[in-house]
């Protein structure tokens, strides 16, 4: 038998943290040391998260009503002796353990999407007095580096970097910022024009060469396109190749084409219905001359509707109702019959319960097969 002992008081600094198979693997491996960190935005209001280099878990505390004792084997300073008739048939003691902690709760770890905390990251729209405005006032809080932002965000490093690239994060005058959509699009256009003018390899772009190309084409005085801005454009609109020693980027041509398409929709098909043929020409006209890409109206799914068979009109998801029933209602008012693929990007974000998309749609609309296509109409 084992002798069980207890101290008078238990040490509350011991906690039980749930280890998913992934967490267990990381914690076991000396190669991955220093990878797991607890992080929080502040000490008393925000949630605590646990981050590896590429994943984030949120902590949840669950109290329970049982007594849980954490006990450790020890060698008694003096041999423990007592009248063994007390054992009532249990075998003689061969070991002693001491309760060193009593845990009344467990901390569960739930995988979550890491987020960047952008409260201290201003938007840069190419304005000349950006630094002054960003650092104005005693409580103006800014970051100088991406590392600082990642340290102060409830996310892992890789998640944070990926999101940073996606939102067009950059640095201007030593201040971390996000490029406005307008400025980002202008910068993209300038980069494409300059890169093509200098015959740079669009599959292997480098920051230095691209920067030089842009400088050539732009007057110094009004050139806001620093190396950092160029890098931001590449990170958003190109894929960084891992293989090369020097970092190179490969342009994401379809993604860029889509961006130009959205701009074209906003510019030419916003308050008015435009014939699709005419729209395609307008779209193509926005690209730098000879820009090597094909366009197709299907690339703009999620950003337009077809009021009639041959016309197109811009729609912004952010202006649509968040309630699924209402959203479907509005969409059917705009267009009475939708191809499944066309309506899908406009409603899938509302499927928060993770239902099969078909089942979700059938809750609010009617689904019909028309030859090879599937169409959706109101109930």
């Amino acid at each position: 038998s084992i002798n069980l002992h207890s101290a008078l008081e238990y040490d509350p600094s011991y906690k039980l943290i749930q280890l998913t198979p992934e967490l267990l693997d990381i914690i076991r491996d000396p190669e991955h040391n220093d990878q797991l960190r607890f992080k929080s935005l502040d000490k008393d209001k925000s949630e605590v998260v646990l981050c590896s280099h590429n994943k984030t878990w949120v902590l949840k505390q669950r109290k329970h009503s049982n007594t849980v004792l954490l006990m450790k084997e020890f060698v008694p300073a003096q041999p423990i002796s007592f009248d063994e008739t007390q054992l009532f048939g249990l075998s003689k003691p061969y070991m002693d353990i001491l309760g060193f902690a009593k845990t009344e709760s467990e901390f569960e770890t739930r995988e979550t999407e890491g987020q960047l905390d952008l409260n201290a990251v201003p938007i840069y729209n190419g304005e000349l007095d950006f630094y002054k405005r960003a650092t104005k006032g005693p409580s103006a809080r800014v970051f100088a580096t991406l590392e600082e932002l990642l340290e102060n965000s409830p996310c892992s490093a890789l998640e944070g970097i990926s999101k940073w690239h996606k939102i067009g994060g950059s640095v201007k005058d030593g201040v971390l910022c996000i490029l406005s959509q307008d400025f980002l699009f202008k910068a993209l256009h300038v980069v494409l024009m300059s890169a093509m003018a200098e015959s740079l390899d669009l599959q292997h772009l480098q920051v230095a060469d691209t920067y030089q190309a842009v400088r050539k084409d732009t007057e110094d005085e009004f050139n806001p396109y620093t190396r950092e801005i160029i890098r931001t454009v590449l990170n958003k609109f190109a894929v960084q190749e891992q293989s090369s020693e020097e970092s190179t980027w490969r342009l994401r041509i379809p993604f860029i084409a889509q961006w130009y398409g959205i701009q074209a929709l906003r510019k030419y098909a916003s308050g008015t219905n435009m014939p699709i043929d005419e729209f395609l020409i307008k779209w193509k006209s926005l690209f730098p001359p000879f820009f090597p890409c094909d366009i197709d109206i299907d690339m703009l799914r999620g950003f337009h509707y077809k009021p009639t068979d041959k016309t197109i009109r811009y729609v912004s998801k952010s202006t649509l109702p968040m309630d699924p029933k209402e959203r479907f209602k509005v969409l059917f008012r705009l267009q009475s019959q939708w191809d499944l693929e066309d309506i899908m990007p406009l409603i899938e974000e509302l499927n928060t319960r993770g239902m099969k998309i078909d089942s979700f749609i059938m809750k609010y609309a009617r689904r019909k097969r028309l030859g090879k296509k599937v169409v959706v109409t109101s109930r």
Partner: protein
Amino acid sequence: PSVKIDATQWQKLTQSQNKQTTVITPLGVTMLEIQGDLELPKDFASLAKKDSKHDGRFSEQDGQTIIRFGSLQIDGERATLFVGKKQRLLGQVTKLDLPMGIMHFNSRDNKVELVDVMKYKIIFKDRPLPIM
């Protein structure tokens, strides 16, 4: 605020150990669960003075007085727990759905250290029986 989890000590200590075969970890840690409250006296010092060789309840360990509150016997998956002089509890060794890391949050040094990983616990869910 942020702090990394330091598992280096635990990795070193468990490297050379054999794989865990019982409910006690290679580092000698056990998780004991009881469906109820474990009632112990609030004052060890004065009771320790009155402790007899027969009872042998109290001892000194690392400068603190500790109380021997029971005996545990494990037989494969079954466990028996004697508490105090009168109670006998029957329980099981169960595998945890998810392993639990015991972490020590050292507020003096602002450090977090992994103490051990628990894969099993001994749980006593049933009403205590008399010892006889």
